[in-house]
C-alpha cells in the first residue's frame, strides 16, 4: 500500500487496492484450475517446487520494486547475477577462499556493481534505462570474458548445495532467505522514511529535493541494494543448480519487471507495493509450474504471462481513462523542464 493505513479509501489507494485484489483472484483462479487439471499440483511437494524455482527471480523482483518506485529501472540485475555466480565460483575454486568468505566477497562485488549504476544514475543524473542497458552488456560481457565462454564452476561441497536443494525447518532453504529479504524490503518500502522518500522521488524528483530529502543518497541506496540482492540470488542460483555458468540469469530482469508491473506498481514511479510484487511473482510462478502439470508446452507460459501483463495494465488504465481525459504519458525519463 502506498500510504500508511488509510482510515478511509481515497482515489489512489482504492485503485491500488482494487488492482491487488484482482491479482489475488487471478492467483486463486490459477491455483484451482491447475489443481483440478494436474493430479499432483496441489501437493506440498509441488508448492515447495514453485517456491524453490521462483526464489532467485523473486529476489530480483523484490529489489526491482524500490527502483521502479523512484521512476527508475534496472536492466542489469540478470547479467549481474551471472557475473556474481562466475566470480563466486572463481573465488572458491581458483582463489581457494572458503565458501562463506567467497560468498561475502561476492556480496561485496554485487554492492560495487550496484554502486556503478548508483553513481551514474544518482550522482550524474543519467537516464536509468540507458545506464542499466550499458551495465547489462558490461556485466554479461565480463562474465563471458572471465570464463572465455568455456569455464564453469562445479562440484561444490554438499553442505553448500544444501542451500539450494535441501530443506530447512520444513521449507526449502533458499525460501528462508527469500522470506527474510521480502520482509526486509516490505518494511523498508512501507514502514520507513527510505520507502517514503522513494515514493516522493518517484512522484516529483525536484519536489523531493526542495523538501529536503537526500534524493541522491536514496537513489544510490536503491541501486546498491539491487546489486547486493542480485549477488545473493547468484549464490542461491549456484547452490540450486550445483554449477556457475556465464549465461546464468539471462532474461531474469525482464521477468522481474513483469512481476513488479503485474503487481500494480506503476512504471512511472510513486504508486506501488511490495506485496503487489509478491503476488505478481506468485502468479507467474504458479502459471509456469501449473502448465507443466497440465501437460501444456513451455511456450504457453510465456504467452499467458504476456497476456496477463497486458490485461492487468489495461484493467488499471481503463477506469482512469474513462474518469477523465488524460494527457499522453511518456515512457522514459520524466518531462525535461522547459
Amino acid at each position, binding site marked *: 500500500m502506498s*500510504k*500508511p*493505513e*488509510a*482510515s*478511509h479509501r*481515497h*482515489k*489512489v*489507494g482504492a485503485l491500488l487496492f482494487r488492482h491487488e485484489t484482482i491479482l489475488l483472484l487471478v492467483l486463486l483462479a490459477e491455483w484451482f484450475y491447475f489443481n483440478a487439471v494436474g493430479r499432483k499440483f496441489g501437493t506440498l511437494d509441488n508448492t515447495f517446487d514453485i517456491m524453490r524455482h521462483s526464489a532467485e527471480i523473486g529476489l530480483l523482483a523484490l529489489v526491482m520494486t524500490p527502483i521502479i518506485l523512484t521512476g527508475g529501472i534496472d536492466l542489469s540485475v540478470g547479467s549481474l547475477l551471472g557475473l556474481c555466480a562466475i566470480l563466486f565460483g572463481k573465488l572458491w575454486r581458483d582463489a581457494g577462499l572458503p565458501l562463506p568468505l567467497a560468498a561475502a566477497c561476492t556480496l561485496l562485488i554485487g554492492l560495487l556493481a550496484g554502486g556503478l549504476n548508483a553513481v551514474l544514475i544518482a550522482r550524474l543524473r543519467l537516464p536509468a534505462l540507458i545506464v542499466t542497458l550499458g551495465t547489462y552488456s558490461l556485466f554479461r560481457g565480463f562474465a563471458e570474458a572471465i570464463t572465455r565462454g568455456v569455464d564453469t564452476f562445479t562440484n561444490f561441497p554438499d553442505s553448500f548445495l544444501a542451500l539450494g536443494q535441501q530443506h530447512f525447518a520444513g521449507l526449502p532453504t533458499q525460501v528462508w532467505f527469500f522470506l527474510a529479504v521480502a520482509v526486509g524490503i516490505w518494511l523498508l518500502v512501507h*514502514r*520507513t*522514511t*527510505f520507502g*517514503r*522518500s522513494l*515514493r*516522493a522521488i518517484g*512522484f*516529483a524528483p*525536484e*519536489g*523531493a*529535493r*526542495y*523538501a*529536503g*530529502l*537526500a534524493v541522491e543518497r536514496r537513489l544510490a541506496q536503491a541501486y546498491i541494494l539491487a546489486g547486493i540482492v542480485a549477488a545473493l540470488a547468484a549464490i542461491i542460483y549456484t547452490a540450486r543448480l550445483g554449477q556457475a555458468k556465464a549465461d546464468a540469469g539471462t532474461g531474469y530482469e525482464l521477468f522481474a519487471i513483469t512481476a513488479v508491473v503485474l503487481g500494480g506498481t506503476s512504471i512511472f514511479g*510513486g*504508486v506501488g507495493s511490495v506485496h503487489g510484487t509478491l503476488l505478481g511473482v506468485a502468479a507467474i510462478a504458479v502459471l509456469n509450474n501449473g502448465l507443466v502439470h497440465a501437460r501444456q508446452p513451455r511456450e504457453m507460459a510465456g504467452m499467458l504471462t504476456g497476456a496477463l501483463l497486458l490485461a492487468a495494465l489495461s484493467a488499471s488504465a481503463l477506469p482512469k481513462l474513462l474518469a*477523465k481525459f488524460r494527457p499522453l504519458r511518456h515512457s522514459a525519463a520524466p518531462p*525535461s*523542464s*522547459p
Partner: protein
Amino acid sequence: MAPLLQLSNVTKSFGAVRALRGVSFTLEPGEVHALLGENGAGKSTLIKVITGAHPLDDGEIQIGGQLITHLTPARARALGIACIYQQPALFPDLSVAENVALRLEKTSPVHGVRWAERQARAKELLHRIGAEIDPAAEVRTLSMPEQQLVEIACALGTGARVVIMDEPTASLTQKEQHLLFAVVRDLRSHGVGVIYISHRLEEIFALADRVTVLRDGQSVGTNPVDAINEAALIKMMVGREVSAIYPLAESAPGERVLSLTGVGCSTSGVHRIDLELRAGEILGLAGLVGAGRTELAQILFGLTPADAGEIRLGGQTIHIADPQSAVAQGIAYVPEDRRRHGVILEMPIAANVTMAIHSRLFPGTWLRDAAERALTLDFIRDLGVKAAGPQAPGGSLSGGNQQKIALARWLATKPRILILDEPTQGVDVGAKSEIYKTIRQLAADGLAVLMISSDLPEVLGMSDRLAVMRGGTIVAEFPRGADAHDVMAAALGQKKEAA
C-alpha cells in the same frame, strides 16, 4: 460591427463541480477586456471553453458573429483565437523558429519544411515585439521571460483576431512589461480583441477598457475601467469587505540571527551579498525577476551552495552544503514554483507535512503513523486548511490550501529562519490576507522571515525592512514605509528623477 466573440449563458461542469454557471461575455474588436476573479472563480475554464480545449455543456458561443457548435483547439485557432498560457507551451528541444512554425503552420504531415522561411518569419515577429532572441537557439536555453516573449510572438504570428493573455507579466521584468503593454496597445489599434487576465490591479487600470469579474463560476458584472475603483473591484471579486490587508508589527525586532558578508555563488550569478536578518522581523526582498532573489534563497537553503563570502548564523560561521544541512541549522524555504517544487499532489497531506522532518519525527527511520497524524491535524486546525483528512491527497486541495500545507511542512521543522518565495503568487485575494496574518504571527513569535515578492504593494506593506536586489546583488535598503517609486527606481537601476 458584430462583436469578435460572444458567449451567452455558457455552463460547464466537471462531475459535481459546476465551473461555469450561465456566463455571458462579449469582446468587441479593438478592445482590451480584462477578466478578473479569484482562483477557482472559473477564469481558466472560460479560457479553455473559448479555445475549444473543453466542450461547453450548455449555452452558445459565437465567433465573428457566427454560431459555433463543437469547437476544437485546431478549429479555434483557425477562427483566429490565440492563447498565451502562463506556463509557456513550447518545445524545449526545438529551435525558436521551429516552435513558432509549429504553432503557425497548419500543414499536413507530407508538406515540406522551408527552414529559411521559418527563420525569417520568426526573426520578423520577434523584432516586432522588440525581443532580441536568436531564432536558431534551442528553447531549452532561453530564460523564462524569453520563453514568454516567444509565446507572444506565436500569438502575433497567427494573425489572431482574439488574443487571450493569462497572467503574461507574472515573470516579465519591468522593461519587458512595458514592451508587452506597447504590443497590446498595438494589437488594439489594429482592431484585435484582447482578453487580459492578471491579479495585478494596477495593470488592469493601466491597460484595459472594460473589466468583467467572475465569482464562483458566475459573472458579477462588466464595467468600463474608468467607472470603477480598486476597492469596488476587490469587493466584487471577494464578495465581502477586505479589511486592512497588511497586518502591522507590534514588537520591535529581536537580536541578529543571520548575517551574510560578501556572500556569492559563481554558478547562479549572485555576488557580494551583505545582509542581516533579525528574529521577529520580516525582511522584504524586492527586485525584478532575474535580479537573483530566488538564487539567493537557493544559496541559503543549500540548493546551490555559496562559494564566496561568509554566512554567520547566531554568531557562528556555517556552511550550508545541501538542503539537509540547511534544515538541520533551522533554515526553511517555501519555494516559488509550487507546482514542481512544493506540495507533492499525489501523496497524502500527512506525508507532505512531515517530509522535511523525517529524521526528527521518525528517529529510527521507522514511520510512526500516530505521531504523523497528530502533527498534521494540528497544522490543519492552526492554519485553517479545508481538507477531507490527513490522508487526502495533496491534489484534492485548492491552491490556497496547498500553499498552507507547504507552509505547514516548513513550520514543522521549527525553523529559526523562514524564507518565503512569492508566498501569495496565484493565490486569490481572500486567501492572501489569511496568509499575511499567519506570516505576521510567525514573526511575532520570534521567527526571522525573509519574504521575496514581486508584488510591490505586498512587499512594502508587509516588510519591517526592505532590501532591493538588481543584477545578482543588493543595491539598496529601505526602512518601513518607504516610497514605492524610490524602491522601483532602485530595482530598475535608474536615477530617482527618471523613474
